[in-house]
């Protein structure tokens, strides 16, 4: 139906778009999958991170890619404090409370952004915003290639962190058996807050990769958060490999769906997959059966 001159670029485009989805989903899968916190504020967190990158560029002239360390550390601290000082205290240990608290946080964040920045859509100009690399018949935007590489690196770091460090072992222990972990001398609240911080730090990285080719406004996170939830379910809760591959897959499905079904209907594929996974493989592609 379409020749390779369209199909291949569309495929590559899907993969690179999917990489950004994966980055957002990585943070979510840690928070949602490992700690069982349904973080409704994930989209709002992404929006805040995007504003952070925007401000660093516009006010201080810092290139988005150079802003990466600042954003990762900044978002980590924000996440740590939010979990420690707000979510943990307000939820009294009940999951359904956490859900409402994060929902409330997202409303507060969005409206704070509306107050501070108005609803104006903002974007930044960088020397590489419009740069492309030619791969076969496809012209791929440089920011997307960087995002793709960034997603791979970030997920590799996360896998290493969780598998090979004491912190990772502590996170896994808390995820599996909170009481037991506590008895073993693990500071559960601290581990929760660190995990939440790492989740938001992923958003900080995602924002640095996303903004050069995208825009920010107070509602921008909503467009990503549902997709990210789908990816987490598809990949398997708490699985970083799953989130990465799930993100790439969803990117491709969206891209090809848009090509064959029309842009308006293209998203059907994403949610079709969501339902199919829930029906036939509820633990996800890489998730362990609980």
């Amino acid at each position: 139906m379409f020749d390779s001159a369209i199909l291949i670029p569309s495929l590559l485009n899907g993969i690179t778009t999917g990489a950004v989805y994966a980055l957002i989903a990585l943070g979510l899968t840690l928070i949602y999958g490992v700690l069982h916190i349904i973080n409704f504020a994930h989209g709002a967190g992404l929006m805040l991170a995007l504003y952070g990158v925007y401000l660093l560029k516009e006010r201080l002239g810092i290139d988005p890619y150079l802003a990466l360390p600042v954003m990762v550390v900044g978002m980590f601290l924000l996440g740590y404090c939010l979990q420690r000082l707000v979510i943990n205290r307000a939820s009294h240990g009940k999951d359904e409370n956490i859900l409402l608290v994060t929902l409330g946080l997202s409303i507060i964040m969005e409206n704070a952004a509306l107050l501070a920045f108005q609803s104006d859509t903002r974007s930044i100009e960088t020397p590489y915003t419009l740069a492309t690399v030619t791969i076969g018949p496809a012209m791929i935007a440089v920011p997307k290639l960087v995002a793709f590489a960034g997603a791979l690196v970030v997920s590799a770091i996360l896998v290493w962190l969780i598998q090979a460090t004491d912190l990772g072992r502590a996170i896994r222990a808390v995820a599996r058996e909170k009481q037991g972990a506590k008895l073993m001398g693990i500071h559960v609240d601290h581990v929760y807050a660190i995990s939440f911080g790492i989740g938001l730090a992923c958003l900080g990285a995602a924002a640095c990769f996303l903004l050069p080719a995208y825009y920010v406004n107070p509602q921008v996170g909503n467009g990503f958060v549902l997709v990210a939830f789908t990816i987490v379910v598809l990949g398997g809760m708490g699985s970083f490999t799953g989130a990465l591959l799930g993100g790439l897959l969803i990117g491709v499905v969206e891209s090809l769906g848009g090509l064959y079904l029309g842009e308006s209907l293209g998203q059907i594929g994403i949610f079709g997959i969501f339902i199919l996974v829930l029906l036939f493989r509820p633990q996800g592609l890489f998730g362990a059966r609980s």
Partner: protein
Amino acid sequence: MRTRRIFMTQSAAAASAMAFPLIGGAQPKTVKVGVLHPVTGALAYSGQQCRLGAMMAVEDINKAGGIKSLGGAKIEALLGDAQSQPQAGAAEVEKMNEAGVSAVVGAFASAICLATTQAAAKHNLPHVVDVGVADQIVERGLKNTFRFGPGYRKCAETAVANLHVLNTLAGKPARTVMIIHEESLFGTGTANLLARELPGYGYEVKEVIKHANPTRDFNNIVLRMKAVNPDIVIPANYYNEYALLVRTMQQQKVQPKAIYSVLGGAASSYKFVKEFPDAANGIIDCNHWFNPKDKRSAAMRKRVEAQGQFFSYEVFMAYTATRLLADAIERAKSADRAAIIQALENSTFSDHIMPYGQTKFINGQNTGAQPLMTQVQKNDIKVIVPREFREVEPLFPMKA
């Protein structure tokens, strides 16, 4: 004798003032007007720009002495938020009705205007539509609904007729068209009208692509554009998607003979021109636009920019719509809803910066309303068609 007469008149005046304190010494009362826009949600930017325009009009009217036929009554704006959703807009109308407004101005988006005009009609509440281009808004026989600006049929017809003139003058370099539109009432309706009009002038509509709001990525659409290779690309969508689309076209090095936007594009957005000057240059729009020959429009642009805002079409559309309403209240000499509707029906409002001439409503539509064609040239927006408003000669086609 003289002094006695003066004494008599003075005491008579004093007596009547005491008998009717409301007419004499008391503060002039206010006329409540609902200002309803989607200031949060997906359409928040446009909604806030509309609110800015409407509030500037209220400020100007009150500063100039309020409604004179009502003893200088000030306009009191009741602000409402339609939250970018029709049902929320309708709920706000109910609230405004309870609060006793005399009329409503709003509500930017077509889908929201459909709901708010209908809700207002139940209470015989006059509703001036500031933008809302869908023609259904004024075609349902609602007596309370008045639209000052043009509808999308008028815009699409003007756009196609003018495109044909441009193309003919240039020796007919363009023959094929691709339309890209957003999926709500505004984009779909406009695209349907264009797709119907264009073949009549000998253009082939190669493809019509609909996209969601928000669309995160336009690469697929641009890839198809590459395959189809249309002479003219016509987008009909909102700002975010428009900006992404045009930037993706630039990225993928797709350069049609013209980018010709109908209702909302770079050539009617100072914001886009400022932020993406390279992408914007040469783009042609058919959209709501002020009369550039009217000196007040330049002054108003300065005033808006002094507040750190862009002088977007929403601002002057809502501004003039609010002035139209104030003019009608002035003529009605009353804050009574039926009287204001009557005054709007007979309105001859002409003291405005739009290229519409004297106002004349037929079935709620201002018959003089028309869009203008603008083009981005040298990082500014200039009117190219029609001739009586022309600031610069059109550049068409964009590439040789």
